[in-house]
């Protein structure tokens, strides 16, 4: 049984990666299980300077999902490198640094900084819907996706660059192709879908930021469709995500074209979710008589 997948020269022991923003910086879940058993960990979005995030309510529950507007609360790159990276380094799993900026200069500085650290890959977050200036501003127009990807790729040295795409666009295939043209080594999708919750009693938005990002099982069909469309548009590997909760979900994303997947909201719902999926995937592959998980990638029959 082979669960190993390789993306842009980086080997993942399992195709199941913890998604950015739902796994903190790894420590919290390590109290529940050995997080090194995961294929990888994508860190919380990291900015040049520390950020306190958004004020007011940051989460709302929706049918089979959640809306969030955390607003990239994080300790900043330097504090992360000094205080958190040594812990992550010791784990022995792939560490993906999620890079979040508000200006092009920010992105370049952060990427350059990470090129001189032990992180395994960079994930370019041009898709956070919850910060006012920047972030998603780079991720909507294919031309700007290509531009920022090219600029960041030029400074991240030997580190593979994964570009994380927002679903809040006209044609996901165009944005996927733009990232590939800009030199991305892989793409990851989908980030959250912009949504809203209103309290009819107070007539006010539930979220402090008015709108937020929708995630959880409710977005899975949309994510699956987008992975399928992106797979037909690019040759670089795809990391799929959006509402994954079970090993069956993992196989569905891989069949649609993902080389690996990220598990996000499920970690918030159940601290054991990611490891339960990793363990369940072996059983599922056995029961499907699949010896190598790589054989399902892009195997969709239409």
């Amino acid at each position, binding site marked *: 049984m082979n669960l190993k997948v390789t993306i842009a020269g980086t080997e993942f022991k399992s195709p199941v990666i913890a998604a950015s923003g739902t796994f903190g910086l790894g420590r919290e879940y390590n109290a529940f299980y050995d997080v090194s058993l995961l294929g990888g960990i994508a860190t919380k979005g990291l900015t040049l300077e520390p950020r306190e995030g958004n004020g007011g309510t940051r989460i709302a*529950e929706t049918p089979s999902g959640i809306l*969030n507007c955390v607003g990239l609360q994080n300790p900043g790159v330097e504090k992360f490198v000094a205080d958190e990276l040594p812990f992550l380094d010791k784990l022995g799993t792939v560490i993906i640094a999620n890079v979040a900026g508000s200006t092009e200069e920010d992105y370049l500085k952060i990427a350059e900084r990470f090129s001189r650290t032990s992180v395994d890959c960079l994930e370019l977050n041009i898709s956070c819907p919850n910060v006012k200036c920047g972030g998603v501003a780079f991720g909507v127009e294919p031309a700007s996706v290509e531009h920022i990807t090219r600029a960041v790729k030029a400074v991240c040295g030997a580190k593979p660059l994964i570009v994380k795409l927002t679903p809040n666009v006209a044609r996901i295939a165009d944005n996927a192709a733009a990232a590939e043209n800009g030199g991305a080594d892989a793409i990851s999708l989908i980030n959250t879908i912009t949504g809203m919750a209103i309290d009819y009693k107070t007539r006010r938005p539930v979220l402090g930021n008015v709108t937020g990002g929708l995630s959880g099982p409710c977005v899975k069909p949309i994510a699956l469709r987008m992975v399928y469309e992106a797979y037909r548009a690019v040759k670089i590997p795809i990391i799929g995500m959006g509402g994954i909760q079970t090993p069956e979900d993992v196989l569905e994303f891989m069949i649609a074209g993902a080389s690996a997947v990220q598990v996000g909201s499920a970690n918030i719902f159940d601290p054991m979710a990611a490891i339960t999926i990793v363990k369940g995937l072996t059983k599922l592959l056995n029961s499907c008589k699949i010896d190598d998980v790589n054989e399902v990638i892009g195997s969709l029959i239409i």
Partner: protein
Amino acid sequence: MKDIIFTVQSKKFLSESVFELKLHTRFTLPPMRAGQFAHIEVPDASLCLRRPFCLYQFDRHSITLVIAVVGKGTKSLSNLKRSDTVRGIVPLGNGFTLSVRHQKIALIGGGIGCAPLLRVPYDYPGREFRSYLGFSTKSGVMFCEEFEQALSVGFLNDAGGGCDGLKKSSRITVSTDDGSFGFKGYAADAFLADYKKGYRPDVILTCGPEPMIKAVQKISAELKIPGFMSGEMRMGCGIGACLVCACAVREDGQVKNKRACVDGPVFRLEDLIF
């Protein structure tokens, strides 16, 4: 903290919309303290988030929660039946921590916000507690017997009053907003009435609706009596990773967003920013 499969041992309605849920496990639970909470799965697949509830009572194999039915999740939990199973992470949060200087303790609770205060006297036996339990009206009054019992801890020879020289009953003041039972007014007002009579606690612990916490924060500042509060926040993971339960608190002269789930849910009243 551990994610544990519990079995419903009992369910009892304390009022029309508030119930007590006792959950049992054959596993030995980790040590727990007053003010900590459990993060409980909702038996409805469309409601993904767990719900945080304070630990009202607990022992080595069980936890008891007090739950107000306020939405779909708590409604769903109210339909649990004896021997149903439900998953929960326990214990979470920092809980109430008293120093040795805190010998005289005032507990001020509002509604089901009284629940997390109940275990404090068990964690700090031999200290002098008074509790002020506030409710909107007589039909909502609850927890009286439980607090009577809790405040008896360390006061077994109670015939002539405990070591604070008061009878047990006078260490508990129940108030109702409409005056239909006990003191007429808010729990904070009942506390102030005792303060005017000379009561000087070393610390105030409070939990309840936001207006009450604001009122107690003001009292704490004006009377220069330090205080701690336990609040209610919308929560995500419950273990400190997702950062959705941020509370604005003062720290080293700066405003910081702290996580209610691991940095709280108990915060110093003076640090809290509304």
